[in-house]
């Protein structure tokens, strides 16, 4: 019998596959396509202290084997997420991870405090890596001291374990990971998007109204694998891996590199059924590579 389940801080996962933040809304739309209880977990769209409208449109552009986005953390704000979105998700037998964002440490703390009190939320994903907002977001994710500070304070405020989502737009990913580990993070989530740009040749301007956007999709997978591989060697925290996952082989590559679980982002746009399909195909893929427990696969490339 293949054993798909595993336990991570705060999370009892029935399988290691979940949708990534920002690519699955608050789940409702996808519940029309399949039963959300099949998912290992759900990472919901970023929450901020107040309602945010986000960036002007266009907000997305296609690139080779990838896409750019600059949504700009549009969300109804933490209070309305708690009142309007979480009740629906509590109908499903799947742990929900809240993605927490902010412009200031205080905002991060406020959001973390509020949302971690919801019984539906089993862990936080601390988003210090959103490249698409002017304030907050990525500067916390590219400065180790700031990253540690916000991690420390959110940890104190949170009722549930905190996974820190790292930005790949840094010189030293291992240094960032160590800094948040020392600050008390319970886990890591990596990677967020790489900052990129595409120009519209007719208009001679960036396609994305925000000019730059976050690059996701298969194009960035080699960078994600490298970073997870390096961090796994130096840091003792479980990693939720993401960046370009489209197939069960991709998932196995992430696990071997050192991820304990994985999140699927942009691929939900190509195929809204992708998470369910990957979960269905996963046991057979494990067997093909000679495994019957997910846990045995984690960090497989380091042995």
């Amino acid at each position, binding site marked *: 019998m293949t054993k798909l389940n595993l336990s991570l801080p705060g999370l009892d996962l029935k399988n290691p596959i979940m949708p990534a933040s920002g690519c699955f809304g608050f789940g409702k739309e996808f519940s029309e396509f399949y039963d959300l209880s099949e998912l290992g977990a759900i990472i919901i769209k970023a929450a901020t202290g107040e309602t945010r409208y986000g960036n002007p449109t266009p907000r*997305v552009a*296609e690139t080779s084997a990838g*896409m750019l986005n600059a*949504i700009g953390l549009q969300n109804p704000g933490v209070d309305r997420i708690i009142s309007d979105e979480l009740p629906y998700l509590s109908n499903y037998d799947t742990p929900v991870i809240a993605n927490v964002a902010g412009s200031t440490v205080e905002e991060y703390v406020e959001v973390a405090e509020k949302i971690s009190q919801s019984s539906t939320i089993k862990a936080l994903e601390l988003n210090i890596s959103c490249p698409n907002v002017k304030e907050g977001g990525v500067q916390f994710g590219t400065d180790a001291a700031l990253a540690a500070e916000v991690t420390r304070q959110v940890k104190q405020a949170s009722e549930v374990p905190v996974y820190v989502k790292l930005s790949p737009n840094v010189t030293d990913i291992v240094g960032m990971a160590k800094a948040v580990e020392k600050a008390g993070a319970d886990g890591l989530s990596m990677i967020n998007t790489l900052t990129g740009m595409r120009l519209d040749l007719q208009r001679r301007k960036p396609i994305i109204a925000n000019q730059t956007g976050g690059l996701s999709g298969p194009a960035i997978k080699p960078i994600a694998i490298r970073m997870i591989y390096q961090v796994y060697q130096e840091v003792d925290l479980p990693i939720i891996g993401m960046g370009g996952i489209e197939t069960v082989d991709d998932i196995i590559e992430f696990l071997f590199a050192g991820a304990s679980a994985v999140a699927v982002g942009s691929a939900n746009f190509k195929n809204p059924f992708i998470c369910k399909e990957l979960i269905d195909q996963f046991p057979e893929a494990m067997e093909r590579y000679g495994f019957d427990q997910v846990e045995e696969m984690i960090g497989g490339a380091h042995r």
Partner: protein
Amino acid sequence: MMIREEMEIISHERIAEDTYRMVLLGDLPAEIKQPGQFVHILIDQSDSLRRPISIADADPAKGTLTILYKILGKGTAALSKMQSGDHLDVLGPGGNGFLIDSISAERALLVGGGIGVPPLYYLARQLKEKGIEVTTVLGFQHEASVFFEEEFRELGEVFVTTNDGSYGNKGFVTDILPDLDGRFDTYFSCGPAVMLKAVSEKLDGYEGYLSIEERLGCGVGACFACVVQAPEGDAKGYRKICHDGPVFRTGEVIL
């Protein structure tokens, strides 16, 4: 309900400059709720994003739907190379279209610009079936890009404008509108943003429905790629084109 399926291309032909008609066969047409909905097509499996294309006509009983599209970039260029018998990865039907069941129109004006014309055709057919009188204004760049004039003419009176005057009336669709004053009670429009803005200003006071375009991500309402602002005071503050739209009542969103 939205479904995803490999639809079969049963016909595909060029109907104007860079403009193609494609008929697709599958289970999806049975799910169409209203004219104005769209299908979200993954043209090549290595693409990262699907392409939204309006449903230009459908025959749910036969399982067919028609799309009309113009070559604009990489995706539509690749689409134009596909052949009858090939299969296409289609997700849909998406969004909310023209809510014709709740509309009390008696005489409808349809205003379409360029590749905004397609969804109006399926709408026109359904309005006609409901006994609503249909007048259509179609705007194109020049003679070579004109399409579907005959098809609309079978359903009512048609006016065609071209920017350069090479066919029909020279000018923009808005140049025709003053002449039509009093000949309709409700209007429906689809086309480039600038055109929609101009049309809605000219037809201020009429009940109107606009179909809006934006670059989509998911196409199912989950990613917030496609939002358009709602006027001050709106509770939510925005609408998602892919999910709440693409059709909105005038005033529901800021153009």
